[in-house]
């Protein structure tokens, strides 16, 4: 709770330290007259002082400390937030909550599927490599994983984009325009086709990381005495893995997945821009360029909540995997 409160405060000031005027938003047009900019500033509430004593943070403009504290940008921001009101985007004039919900769903769809595939494949390869440690299969698996992990995401994306487009796969967007009138099953098929390349890119990039972590942690566990005991009891390799080794070896992987999950709500910006995927990442990027404070505040709040939530889930998973870790 304290963390979220801190994020709310930081969010407000962080973006206002950036130079530039959202009412102009980098627009260079002789048709944009000073009166129009002023009208926009009034509309967005940017004509009000940021907070008592300060009219602006960049450049720092000392203002009147006697202004009504209820009539400052900061107070209005906090009050709206408490009412669950995230405001309107300066750039698109749309409600922030609506824009973010749209984008978040797209991101969760892409990242969620990508993560699940990466986890399954990464764990699979990791277990396999650890079980066959120091054989040629292991070396190939480790080598490949290292290579995949170190691949620049956008480069792999572009390669797959060229390959995919030559094979008739869609390379941009989330759906074929006009599909919304089709039966639901076809719509989902269409989205799946659009998701194929970005998801594949995402899976490949994260799979390598998970394979390596799974492998090394499992090798550690497999060298423990109790595994030897299990072997001595005559348990099969499968039983040893399933009942004795895996649960313990999962802990480091869960940590990394939790960290990745939290941050990837921010969207895999590179993948999103290569495949024109309308996710959160590209929304944030655009909002920074346009100084779209309401979108930025909303998005960062969302990310903060996601990171905290992911960590909370990781903690819960810990106590399930390792009963020694108990929630107090």
């Amino acid at each position: 709770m304290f963390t979220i409160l801190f994020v709310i405060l930081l969010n407000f000031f962080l973006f206002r330290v950036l130079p530039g005027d959202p009412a102009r938003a980098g627009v260079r047009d002789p048709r944009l007259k000073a009166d129009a900019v002023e009208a926009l500033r009034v509309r967005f509430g940017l004509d009000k002082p940021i907070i008592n004593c300060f009219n602006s943070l960049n450049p720092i403009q000392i203002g009147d400390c006697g202004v009504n504290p209820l009539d400052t940008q900061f107070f209005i921001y906090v009050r709206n937030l408490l009412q669950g009101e995230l405001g309107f985007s300066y750039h698109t004039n749309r409600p922030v909550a609506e824009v973010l919900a749209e984008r978040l769903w797209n991101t969760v769809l892409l990242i969620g599927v990508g993560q699940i595939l990466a986890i399954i494949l990464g764990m699979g390869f990791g277990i396999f490599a650890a079980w066959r440690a120091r054989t040629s299969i292991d070396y190939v698996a480790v080598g490949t994983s290292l290579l995949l992990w170190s691949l620049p995401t956008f480069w792999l994306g572009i390669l797959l984009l060229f390959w995919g487009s030559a094979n008739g796969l869609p390379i941009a967007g989330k759906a074929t325009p006009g599909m919304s009138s089709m039966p639901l099953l076809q719509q989902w098929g269409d989205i799946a086709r659009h998701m194929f390349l970005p998801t594949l890119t995402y899976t490949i990039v994260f799979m390598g990381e998970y394979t390596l972590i799974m492998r090394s942690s499992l090798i550690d566990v497999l060298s423990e005495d109790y595994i030897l005991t299990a072997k001595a009891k005559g348990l099969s390799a499968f039983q040893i893995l399933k009942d004795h080794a895996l649960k313990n070896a999962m802990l480091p992987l869960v940590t990394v997945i939790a960290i990745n999950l939290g941050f990837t709500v921010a969207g895999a910006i590179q993948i999103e821009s290569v495949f024109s995927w309308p996710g959160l990442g590209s929304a944030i990027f655009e909002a920074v360029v346009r100084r779209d404070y309401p979108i930025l505040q909303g998005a960062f709040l969302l990310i903060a909540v996601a990171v905290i939530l992911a960590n909370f889930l990781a903690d819960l998973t810990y106590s399930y995997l390792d009963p020694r870790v108990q929630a107090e």
Partner: protein
Amino acid sequence: MKRKFLYVFLLLALILSACGVGQSADAPAVVRIGWGASPDTLNPGNAILAVSYTIFELVYDSMYDLNLDGTFTLSIAESAEVSDDGTVWTFKIKDGLKWHDGQPLTAEDVAFTYNLYLNTPEYPYLNGYYTTYFDSIESTANNEVVLTLTEAIPNIESQLVFLYILPKHVWENVDKLEYENFEMMGSGPFKMAEYVQNEFVRLTANKEHFATPPKVDEVIFQTFDNQDALVQAIKTGQVDMITEMSNTAVANLKAEANVEVISGAPFSPGVTDIIFNQMLPENCPVDEGGLCTGHPALQDRNVRLAIAHATNKQQLIDVILLGLGTPGLTLIPDGLGVWYNDSLVDYEFDVAKANQILDDAGYADTNGDGVRETPDGSLPLTFRLNWPSDSIDTPRMAELLTDMWKQIGITLQPQAIDPDALTALCCPTFDFDIMIWGWVSDPDPSALLYVYTTDAIPYGSSETGYANPRYDELYNQQQVTLDFEERKEIVWEMQKIVHDDVVYVIPYYAQSVQAFRTDRFTGWITDQDKIELSDVSSLVRIEPVK
């Protein structure tokens, strides 16, 4: 095991591709356009981005149409008459016009719309710029619109061309600022069918349009965040036309069968400018936050003239634009047609002459370090050179300019700066020496001519600090000169003045490059002064290849 997964992937890919929709011979003619943008908003009053206006052009009608050669034709009105003093315009609206929902479009809608724009100061362009001279608007029982201006102006067409006519029966019931207008009830040649922001805009043909019913059935604009994907999409036939591409892709795409690449002046012609801070300390707009730290040598016309002579514009065009541009003269680009003063002769590229000018003006290299100093010896000719960091081309230009101007004893300190931070340094702060930036032009030259005026300094539109009473006088004069030829003469003289004073060095006017598939649709307009395949002129004309 690994191979097994690969097979699963491939199988998945096959299954998924089988889900694709097959195309039969009777399928509707759908034009798929790839572009690198998405409208900011569909509410015409709030819109800033040019791509939004592309959609408005297709879905709405307005009083005039802007043609690719820069001329205007009356659209929804059958006649336009002006009073003798030039302040009262009467437009007779055509009878029988219809909105997409079948309701009649009348003078009442037009008057309602113009009043809406006039009375909403929060609309940045439609109010802030285009209704500046509006006094009052009324509709008559005779289906006429009477527009009274505060003063007679010569360019009523360009003032009205972007004031899209909105349906009164929709807009009188909505919040004019917050209304997102996703339904976009219009009267133009295309109807809004579906819009997903940052994904696509889908329009269907309005075959009942009074003037230009489209021959195709549907137009889809799809957003691509990635220029390589855009080029790949037209190569593989995923789209039928692309509105932009990087110049490096041109050669590659030209070699492609069934794809034709065209280039020319853009629909809204652009200009790239090298800006000299020549703000005199005594004119510094201190009240507006002016710092005016410009290098004093740049206030000397001789220095700017020498720089102009030392700039090899053709090389800049060849290296940076790969030849896809024309050499620049003033802020008025050649794409503005008659307004562009093509009688001006540019300063020839001649390093020796440039050096001579500096020698004669007393800028000598007294300490032998290769950099000249000001005549009093106090300051070396070392200039800060800044440009917006979101520009892809400019770093290369900065590098080339550094080499070119080194030949005449000038050193540059190049640095890219975030566009918003640069705006803060620029105007009216004047905390820079030289900047590279650009403008996009309105169809009427007035907007860019304003940038040179003294009035524009405190407003932050003037980026040079140039002040010339004679120029200001001509600017005001051309604003109210009703005779076309006479106004053109004034506009040409203004360009001559700022060219003589070397207010800017204009390296080039970049061309726009677009491409279309020749095996899908035919009839694209490619032979005009300006090119814009996504303009309504092309989209109502094209038909499927038989």
